């Protein structure tokens, strides 16, 4: 009896606490959503408010006029995110698994090899030279997928750590005694055991590809290959640039650039697809976490 109420009380506390956090997390985002629907003039005259004096759809009308650009950019980003995430998860788990094997001779060496990449990088100039001159990926869709994000040390260590703590040596040993090859152990035993961590890094990787704009910035000049982030950031940063001092020598008054509410609307359409898709993906994600809990 006593245990039950204790658990119940804790559950209530958790719910209340997380409710509060959720509100804190969402309120600022709601403010920009509302700002994107606020009349530009009202925004500047009366300030940002959850209950604006005048509403307006102008910002979205402006964006609908550009829907061709935006839809194509969505297409690019979705493709890149899907292909990038699948490849990345595969390569990452394959790299992390040997690192987790306590009796693998090169375990520490490999870990250090991976970790070193997290500390040192040669800078953008040399990697740009390599990718464009040797691999010729400039202005190809691969430029958005391959450089930088396919294997990150962070994810490798997350997976390795999960394996070392959640895959009992005994399972592998008994499989080895049964004569299973390493490949077979990896596919048949390790992969099914690593659903939670695969869910986690898939999520991280997908977000990373979805939000990436650096690869686009460096390697893409053709506008048909711009992803959604590149499109948004270009417009936002052009405005930023105009406001910064370095633009003053242009001395041109004819700049009719998107106003605050349009910029807010752009931010909204940048995250909208994730907000819509995420609950569906999350089902698998949470299932993964729970499957892991049962098996572990």
């Amino acid at each position, binding site marked *: 009896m006593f245990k039950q109420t204790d658990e119940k009380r804790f559950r209530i506390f958790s719910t209340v606490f997380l409710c509060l956090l959720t509100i804190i997390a969402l309120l600022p985002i709601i403010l920009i959503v509302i700002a994107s629907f606020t009349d530009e003039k009202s925004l500047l005259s009366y300030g940002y408010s959850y209950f604006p004096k005048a509403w307006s759809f102008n910002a979205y009308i402006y964006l609908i006029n550009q829907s061709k650009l935006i839809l194509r950019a969505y297409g690019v980003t979705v493709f890149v995110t899907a292909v990038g995430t699948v490849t990345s998860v595969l*390569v990452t788990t394959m790299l992390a698994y040997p690192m987790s094997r306590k009796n693998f001779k090169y375990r520490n060496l490999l870990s250090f090899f991976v970790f070193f990449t997290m500390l040192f990088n040669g800078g953008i100039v040399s990697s740009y030279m390599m990718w464009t001159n040797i*691999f010729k990926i400039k*202005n190809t869709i691969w430029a958005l997928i391959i450089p930088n994000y396919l294997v990150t040390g962070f994810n490798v260590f997350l997976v390795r750590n999960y394996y070392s703590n959640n895959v009992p040596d005994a399972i592998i040993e008994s499989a080895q005694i049964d004569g299973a090859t390493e490949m*077979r152990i990896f596919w048949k035993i390790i992969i099914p055991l690593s659903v939670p961590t695969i869910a986690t890094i898939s999520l991280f990787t997908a977000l990373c590809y979805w939000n990436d704009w650096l690869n686009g910035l460096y390697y893409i000049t053709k506008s048909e290959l711009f992803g959604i982030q590149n499109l948004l950031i270009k417009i936002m940063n*052009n405005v930023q640039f105009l406001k910064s001092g370095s633009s003053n020598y*242009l*001395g041109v*008054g004819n700049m009719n650039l998107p106003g605050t509410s349009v910029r807010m609307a752009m931010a909204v359409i940048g995250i909208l697809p994730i907000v819509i898709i995420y609950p569906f993906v999350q089902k698998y994600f949470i299932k993964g976490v729970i499957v892991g809990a049962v098996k572990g």
Partner: protein
Amino acid sequence: MKIWKKGLIIALSLIMVIGLAGCGKSTTGEKDKDGSKSGENKSYDKVVYAYATFNNIPTSEVLDTVEEEINKITREKINVEVELLPIAIFDYSSSVSLALQGGEQIDLFQSLGDFNNSVSSDMAYDITDMIDVYAKETKEILGEDILAACVKDGRLYGIPTYKPYALTPMVVYKQEIADELGIDMSQVKSVFDLTDVLRKVKEAYPDMTPLVPVQTGTSGVNMTIPEVDYLTDDYFSPKGVLMGDSMTVVDYYGTEEFAEICRLVRTWYNEGLILKDAATTTSTSTELMSSDNSFCYIASYSYPPEDTAASISAQVGNIPLGAVQIGEAYLDTTSINALTWMVSSTSKVPEAALKFLNLTFTDPDVINLIIYGIEGRDYVMDEEGYVSYPEGQDASSVPYTAQLSCGTLGNFFLMHPMKGTKKESLIWEEEQNKLAKKSPAMGFTFDSSEVKTEYTAVSNVIQQYLPGLLCGSVDPEVVIPEFRSKLSDAGLDAIIAAKQKQLDEWLKNK
């Protein structure tokens, strides 16, 4: 079964490796195809023209159509084919330098205020001996005086965009409020006359902040200090400057002129006459002007005051605006070479590049194709020669336009005027270029490489203090002394000394 799995893994690993090489291959293949395509006819030199754009970047097919139109002209005239490479303005400089470092072909590029750096890091081709052969007409149009701004150590490294250089400081204000309160704006002759006007407006509208900043971090007052030659520094980060006719480099922040305008803005700030967040606002001046809470802002424009007011009025929801001049235009080296076209030092076809650059200054068809795209599809022209977008389209929906970059490419005076502007203004502007007072150090450029360390430190200090001072949010009596002592800790004196030394040398050789 086992073997099959093993094979799968190996295959996967191989795919990874080959996949990388494979995508390389496919692009090279494409390139070869392109090469053979142009090789079928006559062989032309291919020039890559990289320009900064504020507009949407057009798709490749659209770019191809515009390129083809330009090529029709260039093949015949100069035996050259052009590839246009529009880059969004905010990452233009970094993209170009990255591409040049990576060994990609970019033959022509522009400076965005960083001409000096481009030259000192060897990005620009020395065109001294080529200009008379390949770009003679351009040289004639611009004249030696203007070209001198792109000379360094006696060598010519670029051609400045030909446009209205002279920026005249003005106050842009809301006509209705001025009329209503009976304020005669024509009596405002200098920035100091503005205080009473602002007070009057504030009195009538206590909720209003009459003055808004022109840009993040400046109320615009710094542009009203007369006759300052920034000696190649950024306008928003001046270090050692010349004032008036004196040839002694002075510390900008130690001058009485600077202290005076800081005190002026401070009184505005204390009385609530200027936007409190001027130092950090995220809104552009046009946005701020379209709200009901503002009255005026200070800015420098290259158009006649009436035109300026009219064209800005169109952007702020047709609120009637007026503009008055509150100072004189002044030309120094930077005002001309800030936007300079250069042939890249890595170019394999510098002659062809220069020939094409010459066309952007001399051939109206070429420059208008780059700016407006193809007539009928991207723009229409009325009988009087004014240009507008086709019915129901605007700058963001036409397939190609680079209209917002008009002041940065080639010869501005050859471009078709947009509807709503006046052709007569062009004449005024070209006149202003000749009439505006020129700095005695016109043509001098400062090479900062010997004081690099100090330069970075000083830039940091300036960004920490200057916006606050120019927007009145800090007290100049307290902050200027603190600011100056930090500057001298950061090595400002070394920069000033280096400037003076180079300037003296330059004068000797002149």
